[in-house]
């Protein structure tokens, strides 16, 4: 196990003594609801993918407390550089479900104009949330650059940079931590140690004793936290953000959690994840644990889960229906946004594409199955 002691606020049964999470009752209930909203989004996305209506999705199940606990420590002026599995962060900050669904369907209202795969969301409001780039770890030094720019402008905003255990093997991780350490950047690195990088278990990803320790070599303090404990996640992120805002530099948070689903809707984890491991983590599900905590404060009762989940499903379905009914992007969207102004040669290629469409009709719709 890790050289660092894993911080927990709640015990396995959700008991947190007299811990003050620094959130109102309504805010605590909002955190809970956001976790269920992520779950409803996951369940809907899976159905949409299985029925062929969207091409792809990334399951978040098991990671909701990590996402929501960390997101709750941020202000709207902070920036999020997410990992693949961070749907709870934009949802916590109030990004509309339909905006996320527009991306899932790649329609004309999608922020990326249907150019990116599903789950590659970008938002500027109500919080900056930059789309993932499928190459792993590229966003880590970029996030440090944003953090450095925030500092240079004399602001006290921070960049939260999230990645998985696999991301720590990327070049970007090492460059990013090194620069942030040297510059004392207001960055918070969040390593979601969820057990697997696609099929690679963490013990094959690194020989080091956990991931938090990796910060030490770069002069970045590391902390290990129970990622399925929403209150502990919130506490370590609040502390890391406070350090960053105060000019004391970056922190590397290792959130120990588990990916309860496949890497994606195209992946079959039963090929490589032992069944016993899934069963073990099923018992550590962050949702019932937080329910027990809420119940201990009189904020949750039997039946709430079903009622709130049903509400969330209804909202997600409404968003999905609206996104599905929205037309796809126009042919012109292939040619715009390459540069600020469309260069002549790209304009000519666009005109030729329209000309061909007029003369020979539209191209046959794309098929193909995404494997990853």
């Amino acid at each position, binding site marked *: 196990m890790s050289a660092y002691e894993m911080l927990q606020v709640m015990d396995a049964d959700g008991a947190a003594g007299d811990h003050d999470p620094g959130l109102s009752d309504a805010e605590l209930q909002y955190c809970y609801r956001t976790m269920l909203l992520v779950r409803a989004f996951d369940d809907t996305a899976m159905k949409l993918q299985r029925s062929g209506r969207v091409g792809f999705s990334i399951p978040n199940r098991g990671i909701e407390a990590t996402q929501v606990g960390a997101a709750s420590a941020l202000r709207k002026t902070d920036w999020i550089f997410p990992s693949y599995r961070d749907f709870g962060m934009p949802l916590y900050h109030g990004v509309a479900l339909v905006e996320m669904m527009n991306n899932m369907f790649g329609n004309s209202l999608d922020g990326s104009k249907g150019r990116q795969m599903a789950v590659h969301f970008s938002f500027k409001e109500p919080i900056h949330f930059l789309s993932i780039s499928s190459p*792993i770890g590229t966003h880590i030094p970029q996030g440090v650059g944003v953090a450095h720019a925030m500092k240079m402008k004399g602001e006290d905003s921070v960049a939260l940079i999230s990645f998985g255990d*696999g991301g720590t093997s990327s070049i970007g991780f090492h460059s990013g931590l090194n620069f942030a350490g040297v510059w004392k950047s207001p960055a918070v690195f969040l390593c979601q140690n969820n057990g697997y990088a696609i099929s690679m278990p963490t013990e094959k990803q690194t020989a080091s004793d956990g991931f938090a320790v990796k910060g030490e070599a770069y002069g970045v303090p590391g902390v290990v936290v129970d990622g399925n404990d929403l209150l502990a996640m919130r506490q370590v992120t609040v502390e890391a953000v406070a350090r960053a805002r105060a000019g004391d530099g970056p922190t590397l948070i290792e959130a120990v959690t588990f990916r309860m689903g496949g890497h994606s809707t195209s992946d079959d984890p039963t090929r*490589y994840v032992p069944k016993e491991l899934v069963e073990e983590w099923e018992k550590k599900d962050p949702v019932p644990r937080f329910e027990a905590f809420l119940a201990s404060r009189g904020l949750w009762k039997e039946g709430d889960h079903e009622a709130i989940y049903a509400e969330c499903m209804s909202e997600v379905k409404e968003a999905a229906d609206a996104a599905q009914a929205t037309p796809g992007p126009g042919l012109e969207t292939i*040619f715009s946004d*390459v540069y600020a102004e469309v260069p002549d040669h790209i304009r000519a290629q666009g005109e030729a594409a329209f000309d061909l469409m007029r003369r020979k009709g539209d191209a*046959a719709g*794309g*098929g*193909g199955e995404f494997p990853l």
Partner: protein
Amino acid sequence: MANLTLLQAVNDGLKTAMRDDETVLVFGEDVGPKGGVFLATEGLTAEFGEERCFDTPLSEDGIVGTAIGMAMYGLKPVAEIQFQDFIFPAFDQIVSEAAKLRYRSGGQYTAPLVIRTPYGGGIRGGLYHSQSGEAYFCHTPGLKVVIPSTPHDAKGLLIASIQDPDPVLFLEPKALYRTVKGEVPEESYTVDLSTTRKVREGDDVTVFCYGAMVPVCTEAAEHAAEAGISVEVIDLRTLYPLDEESVLEAARKTGRVVTVHEAPRFCGYAAEISAIIAERVIEYMEAPVTRVTGFDTPFPNTLEHNYLPDHRRVLDAIERVHAF
């Protein structure tokens, strides 16, 4: 003979090479127990053990860098990069190191590794799971660049690449992984690198293509035949070093040339084909030497079928050069 998909032929090629030569190793991200995200390496760990087919940490730079070292020391590494789109962290290792090792050491050291990677569109993979980066690598002396389009060539070219004394980038057209099937000999065999394949004989127009564009061009040629235009289709299959003589011969034969690829046009591979023809056989040309390519834009997602050259676009070009 077995009737295999292109994907199965790659898998068969790897197994055959590993059975024939115990220094052949396969490694990369998720190639072990999972068998690769496309299942190209399925069953390798089971048959050859974790010593010879294994997962690596998530670092393309690490994968290619260590493969260079193993190759230098006499092993035959076949490294997988999960998607060609993910290869760029290893660009330095490939372009600055593997490709130049023989030259910079005066032939004292070599790095005969193979890097396999799926490339191209057709699976709704968006910007980062669809690109065709062959031109970057064809601009790299010291590297060989191979792209099969049939199961037979996939196995034969792969084994030839593994046996080759120089570094080979083996680009697999993922759109064809499961959509083409063909007869593949069960034994070990090679298809010579730097040779082209005549897919279809024709007299009026010559179409050069490779990878996933081969079936597209064949379909366009069939439509052209209905309209009375006889099209010769050439699969280039090794892009670098190119069998220039066979290209020149096929260009001279019809005097009307169309080159097709799904990568962007500007400085794309078709530009080299056009230049070779312009320099050496322009006097035979009856029509402008023409390209059909992806657009000079990043690769879209929802509209990928509009981005990728299809038989309509290829046929349109064939008709234009034929009517010129």
